[in-house]
């Protein structure tokens, strides 16, 4: 069994990867979409950027809440991901 904290970490990582990847590819492939204003006067470039920064903080917070401190762990349980 993969330790719980590592699994939570990887799930959160992939969620953030989607969010970040979405931003990067939107910039690279459709830069004009960054002009769209989801909030009046504030374009997507700024709002998405702020979401990525605030989102990183919120996800780190979530990670901190979900993780349990493993008092003792079986060190040999390191698994590969094949």
């Amino acid at each position, binding site marked *: 069994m993969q330790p719980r904290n590592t699994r939570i970490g990887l799930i959160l990582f992939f969620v953030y990867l989607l969010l970040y990847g979405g931003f990067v590819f939107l*910039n690279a492939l459709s*830069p004009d979409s960054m002009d769209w204003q989801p909030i009046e*006067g504030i374009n997507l*470039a700024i709002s998405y950027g702020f979401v990525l920064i605030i989102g990183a903080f919120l996800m780190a917070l979530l990670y901190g809440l979900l993780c349990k401190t493993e008092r003792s762990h079986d*060190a040999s349980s390191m698994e590969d991901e094949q």
Partner: protein
Amino acid sequence: MIYEPSTIAVIVFLAFVGLTLGLSFYLGRQAKSSEGFFAAHGQIPWFVNGVAFAGDYLSAASFLGICGMIAFKGYDGFLYSIGYLAGWIVALFVVAEPMKRLGKFTFADALNSTFHSRGIRLVVGISTLVVSVFYLIPQMVGAGVLIQPLLGFPHWVGVLLVGATVIGIVTSAGMVSTTWVQFLKGSLLVVFSGVLTYVILQRGFIEKQGGIDGHVFQVLGPFPASSSLDQIVQGTPAFQDSQVLPSDDVWADRPYLRTKQPDGGVTFWRIDSDGETTTLRESQVLTINLNGETLVNGMLKGVQKGEPELHPVGYIHQLAGDREETGPLGMLSFFRELGTAEVTLWGEDKLVESDGSKTTVYYPIPVSGSEVLRPGRKFTGIRSDNPIDRLNFLSLMLALFCGTASLPHILIRYYTVKDEAAARKSTIVGIAAIGFFYVLTLYIGLGAMVSGSLDVTTDNMSAPLLAKSINQWLFAIISAIAFTTVLGTVSGLIIASAGAVTHDLLVSSLGFKFSGNEEVRVAKIASIIVGSIAIGLGILFKGLNVSFLVGWAFSIAASANLPSLIMLLFWKRTTSQGIISAVTVGMISSLAWVLLSGDTYQAVYGLDPADAFVPFSQPGIVTIPLGFITLVVVSLMTSGREPRQSPSDYASGGQK
């Protein structure tokens, strides 16, 4: 621009730097005399440790570089802020937990303890050295940048001064940069960036036609496109007393008009034509002639205020709705107002005249506010028709994402508190402080863009100059915070490099045997050599944005280290040969790519970027996957030759 030192600023600066260094030495000595440096860390409260994370990570490079790039190019600089912070997600979610289960704190520890391979030590030692040197360059450039407006010294003196100071500190006393000092620096940087942002918002936007020295840049026209330049010159009163210089030599076919004034100065006009109208915009020109003299707009550059110099720039030339100023703004109305305003940015054009003198024309570019708030002014490739140009941008964003977790020294602080819960809490505080600071970089950068205080010749100075335009105290404090950060970071990097040379290369790999005293001496000599290299490179790379340079360090770190780190943690069949090859290939390919890139051609060698060997400048998107492929292929080829120890064999030992 001519920089005159201000007494108040120098005194505040020296007092601040002295206090921080003194505190650092004091606490460092305490840590040595108590139960040792790392034992003391067990007592550090998680909140303090979290802010110290920010102090460690937010080098002056990210403060100076990001703000400077935003001030000159707009939103694109903010992409670095986003990428740097996203890198923490990789470090926290993917690398930190499994590393902790290995009982290891750094990349090098984890790799060495798993295989006990001399080859791994050698390549990791070299890659640590290369990454550290590339990380040192922007710090040194940043140091020169801080010294120049503050003390009035030229850039190279600043670099030399910092380099010599740090070498002195490292070789005489050995600098222990403690958590408390990083906490102090981290919180001061965040707090004073907050103050700066508050002042920017309170000041709002003011419509101006020039910088803070009061010089008004003239704009003539628009004239109908059908009128020739001769007609425009004859029909415009502003040209009455001036003589038009012929458009020969390099000036032929260029969009400039040069008019000589009665006092001998030359005014350079950028000719802007949009097909229907022609507008002439006053520009600024810096010439270095064959005698080594510097001329500003055709006159010998002065040494005191009032004599010929380049004027400060950066202003809003038109606010929406016929207003001259906006009054205080909020966090969101700041963007709304800027988005509807018209901003003057400055471009540059480098020319070599037939007599060999080098001329740089700095010309105004009127840009709509909405344009500086969207990506594409620095990374022009994303709006190009050529898909390869987009790869450059993707490559950078990938390297920033992967780089943080691959920097040899970055994860250590995760383990400096008493237990895992405290470690996670302090990381969250760290991400909060770093994220908050990065949000502020957008306000500070854009605030500098319209502050009227920018130096057209370098973007790195934008944040300190913005502070200087507000008041001397703020300027002195911000410069001092940034400067102590440079000293701390440079000392740490030089010690890390010296350690890599002594332990990893000389002792472990090449089999030298030193006594305790000899080892210290060798480490000191290594510090002097690395420090001297850093000084040289800091002077050489003066013209480059420091955050851009940090981007290179991230690319090399991510290409050399990340594939091995991830595969070691998650793929059981990784072999030592696989790791050696992946680190070697990742490091050499990314280093070669950077050295052969168009950006280096242009900024360092002074060659035409179109002649560069590689199709785009950022290596990450090619060299990071290359590292992974090398590792997998070599590991599969060499699997079965050596039994890998089970993790339980090494999970218990080797803690630092």
